[in-house]
């Protein structure tokens, strides 16, 4: 009797726990037999001209099929460490392997970049964390960091397309608004955006984007926004409302966009679970046949 009660209690608990934010990754995020495995290498960047003094790790994913004979597409990820992790929320290298092999996305090189840190010079002092400054600021500085600091490094080694339609950028939270900012500032360089739980709130003015989008001539950007009903509501604003405002503004101004509102919180579970589908949608007509 007691055990039955306990079991039913556990059952109810698990129902409660499963009610919201219960997103699972699907088969595209697991290794599949006979799918060639691309290579991920780790690097450190310490010579930024755009963010002087910053140091950061970055990773490059190169598909097994890449031979340099034709330009590869590029996809950049903020908070790169989380995205390149094959046990993380998105497992990008595995998803890329699978979808490149099946021909659902183009041959794509992945660039996963961590936010910068300025180490302290004085003993015992803390480093300056540059993540919010780099990701939340509404300016072209991060786009210039990608184009002037990082692209030359990539281009020295790899044949990467100059077609902005072949360049995508993705991030979570402040990294999500950062992805949008890069394309908004430089649609000549990046035209495809994925935002997980994007911080379109007033951390450093990001709540202005819906108004800017409505009163700026349409830019050739394709964007997938993911958010959840249980996302943050704090001093910077409401994440669900911010993302709804973005979606409404994108619709008003005729953007090629998709908006998914789940029931998750401020994390990468939902985004990671639908990441393969977001990629399919983002790359659905590229390269043009």
């Amino acid at each position, binding site marked *: 009797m007691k055990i039955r009660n306990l079991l039913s209690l556990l059952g109810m608990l698990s129902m409660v726990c499963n009610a919201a934010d219960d997103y699972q990754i699907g088969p595209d995020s697991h290794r599949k037999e006979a799918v060639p495995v691309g290579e991920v290498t780790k690097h450190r960047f310490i010579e930024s001209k755009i963010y002087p003094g910053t140091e950061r790790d970055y990773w490059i994913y190169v598909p097994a099929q890449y031979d340099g004979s034709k330009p590869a597409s590029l996809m950049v990820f903020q908070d790169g460490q989380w995205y390149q992790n094959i046990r993380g929320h998105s497992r990008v290298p595995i998803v890329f392997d699978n979808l490149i092999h099946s021909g659902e996305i183009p041959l794509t090189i992945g660039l996963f970049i961590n936010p910068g840190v300025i180490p302290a010079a004085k003993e015992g002092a803390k480093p*300056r964390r540059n993540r*919010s400054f780099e990701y939340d600021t509404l300016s072209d500085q991060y786009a210039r960091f990608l184009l002037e600091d990082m692209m030359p490094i990539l281009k020295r080694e790899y044949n990467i397309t100059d077609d902005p339609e072949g360049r995508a950028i993705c991030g979570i939270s402040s990294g999500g608004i950062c992805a949008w900012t890069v394309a908004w500032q430089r649609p000549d360089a990046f035209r495809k955006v994925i935002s997980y739980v994007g911080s379109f709130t007033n951390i450093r003015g990001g709540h202005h984007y819906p108004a800017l989008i409505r009163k700026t001539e349409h830019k050739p950007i394709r964007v997938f926004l993911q958010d959840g009903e249980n996302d943050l509501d704090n001093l*910077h604003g409401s994440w669900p409302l911010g993302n709804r405002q973005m979606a409404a503004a994108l619709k008003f101004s005729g953007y090629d966009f998709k908006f998914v509102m789940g029931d998750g919180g401020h994390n990468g579970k939902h985004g990671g679970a639908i990441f393969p589908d977001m990629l399919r949608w983002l790359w659905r007509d590229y390269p043009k046949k």
Partner: protein
Amino acid sequence: MVPSIYCILFAGVFYACSTLAQDIPLNRVLIKDEGWEKVVGGMKFCDACCSDRLGNFYFSDAKGGDTVMKVTPSGEVSDYINGVPGISGMQFGPGGKLYACQGRSRRIVALSPGKIPELIVAEIRPNDLVVTKDGHLYFTETSTRRVYHLDLNKAGKRLRIVASDIAKPNGIALTTDGGTLLVSDHMDKEVWVFRIEKDGSLGHRAPYACLRLRSKNHPSKGDGIEVDDQGCFYVASDLGLQMFDPTGRISGVILSPQPGKPLVSVVFSGKRLEYLYIANGDAVFRRKIQSKGVLHW
């Protein structure tokens, strides 16, 4: 397999939470029903707030008289030192010396009760200063748009320009750990940060935080800066006391008690450095908050 997935999920959530530690609303800092209380009134222009190790508070009446005043934590006010007019910035440094900017007298002096002021540097127009625990003094010179450095340990005390081209550099402070220098701009919205290098020079300048303005193109009136034990910083400004989290995100504006009068200086004082003291026009006010100050010497 299953446990490892959960570990990673938890790790991800933990990482997210650790980045959320930046999201500090005003109600995590202010205390409900605890407002500003007047400490001293009837002055001309209060400025140069600072604190000693025991939590005694000091300030100047920069445009009236020539006295540095002392206020004990229990509120007793006395003249600390006379004969030093026009002090706009003041801080205790190593050895308990009280360093003071006298812009109109074009000098920085070290003060001790009953002694003639010791000249530290002359032929400059200092506005505000800060002293590190290892004896490096930095000060702003608003008129030349510069920040200077002086190594107090070295004989001869050679002056160095360590930053320039800030519209109106004014307030100056150290982060909690002493590794970063903050400088406010009285004209523009930027609060600049610099890494303090081993030799005392400044590197890697960035406009890390932005003050809210009354209206576009209105001067920020960014002035005195104070840092708390969590690394948040508070900047006196036109709109009030603007609070920023350690990553430079604005947390909010704490309203000044006399909005029509200039808010120019701020410091933690009191027995446990649990009070924010501000110079707001003709008066000094204090307010107990949840955060506490840090001593740099």
